């Protein structure tokens, strides 16, 4: 059943407007981050690492979660139209399969987004004349940020499933990002789902902020993801009477 759901969810992305957000939004932090790097080149002396701090400063902090929020909201949008919820509840699939399929598709798009961010980072580095290739550590940080995004994807899907508005979950993601930033500055980043991509991507830091805390990071990712999946399962099975 999950296979059929995946095919259906992937079909929704064919020619979808969500690719516009995918293409455009990461360009802004790349351009602004590179500009900021060039303006402060006297202070930023760690080559690729310094450029990374400027690229991720605002991307990971404020705009990554809302972008994931747009992806998640887009996949639930169709379900909120007309009487589609009645149809979903009547089809012979386990409701959590539908949620899991949407999760896997949003994860795929998020992974592609991170790839696009890396391409922009690499191109910007070459444009400003940085030597060689970016350190492998940065690729690890980018992938770790994608792992950190897993609970954010689950939470945004949960919010978009419950809130029948395309835009509100995106605003929640932005508010959550601000909260995640504040929690992270206070040293409680591992206790806030919106802080996890920021910690994973090692945003605005030259040295690894998660040294010795990788297990705690992964445990936090797993705990939040399980919580949001459990809530999704609860709402889809116990609260389906809310369907129109």
């Amino acid at each position, binding site marked *: 059943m999950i296979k059929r759901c995946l095919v259906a969810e992937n079909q929704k992305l064919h020619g*979808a407007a969500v690719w516009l957000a995918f293409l455009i939004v990461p360009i802004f932090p790349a351009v*602004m981050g590179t500009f900021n790097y060039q303006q402060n080149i006297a202070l930023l002396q760690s080559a690729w690492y310094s450029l990374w701090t400027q690229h991720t400063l605002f991307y990971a902090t404020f705009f990554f979660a809302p972008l994931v929020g*747009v992806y998640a909201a*887009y996949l639930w949008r169709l379900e909120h139209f007309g009487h589609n919820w009645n149809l979903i509840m009547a089809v012979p699939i386990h409701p959590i399969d539908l949620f899991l399929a949407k999760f896997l598709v949003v994860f795929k798009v998020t992974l592609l987004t991170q790839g696009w961010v890396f391409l922009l980072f690499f191109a910007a580095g070459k444009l400003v004349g940085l030597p060689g290739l970016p350190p492998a550590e940065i690729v690890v940080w980018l992938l770790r940020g994608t792992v950190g995004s897993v609970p954010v994807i689950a939470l945004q899907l949960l919010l978009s499933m419950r809130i029948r*508005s*395309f835009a509100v979950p*995106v605003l929640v993601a932005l*508010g959550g990002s601000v909260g995640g930033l504040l929690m992270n500055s206070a040293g409680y980043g591992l206790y806030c789902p919106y802080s996890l991509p920021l910690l994973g991507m090692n945003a605005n830091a030259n040295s690894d902020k998660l040294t010795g805390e990788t297990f705690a990071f992964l445990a936090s990712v797993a705990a939040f993801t399980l919580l949001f999946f459990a809530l999704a399962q609860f709402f889809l099975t116990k609260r389906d009477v809310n369907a129109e």
Partner: protein
Amino acid sequence: MHGIGTALWAELKKAHHRHDLWVILASAGVIIGWVMAVECRHPTPEDLASFYAGLFYTYPLVNSIILPVAMAVLASRLWDVENKCDACKLLFTLQSPTALYTSKLVLGGLEVAAIAGLETLSVPVLGLLCHATQPLDGTQLAWLFFSAFGVSLMLFFLEFALSIGFANQVPALAIGLGGAFIGLFSAFFPAGLSVWLPWSYYNQLMTVGMDWNPTTREIHYYTNPYPVWPWLVLLVACLALGFVGRRLVERKEA
């Protein structure tokens, strides 16, 4: 006018069912909470002596990140409710497109004013909570309200036109997110470029500047003259975007 009054009453009822109040409170809450976390955490006597200047500097910066997205959300919700049920055809048998559009704009304007008002109200409240020693400048406070309201209203008009033009709402939200980036960095743009970027006006209307001394790590705030010409741009932009939006609604009828 009777048609617009009835339409506005209907929009208020829709807003009540959409829980718009929560969106207003959440938007203002994120802004105020963030500023509070930055300005009110362990302030020194020196910080308290320039407390309000700090707020008048920080609020427009935070506005430039949060409000473009908040405006996209408000505009998208106002129009998307009609998209969901493909309600335009039915609505236009009961009210004119102009009445529908104008009533939504008026409601949106009231919601924008509510966010700007809550933000402005938070300034003296934060001053009292943190025991600020600097006297509060009433003109600066009024300026904060009008600049937050004026720029946000223009962005609301822009996002509303996008929400009407693109049924799927992704462009409105994506442009809101991109605009937040542009607004944030617009302080570094040349004036000739900034004038064309609607999201840069939070910065352009700022009247408090800051000098940071990296050796002493001290912050010195200073005031700039109140700029007049951006208001003219805001007025022209609102009129133009309002006209575009109305044309888009009228075309929905065809």
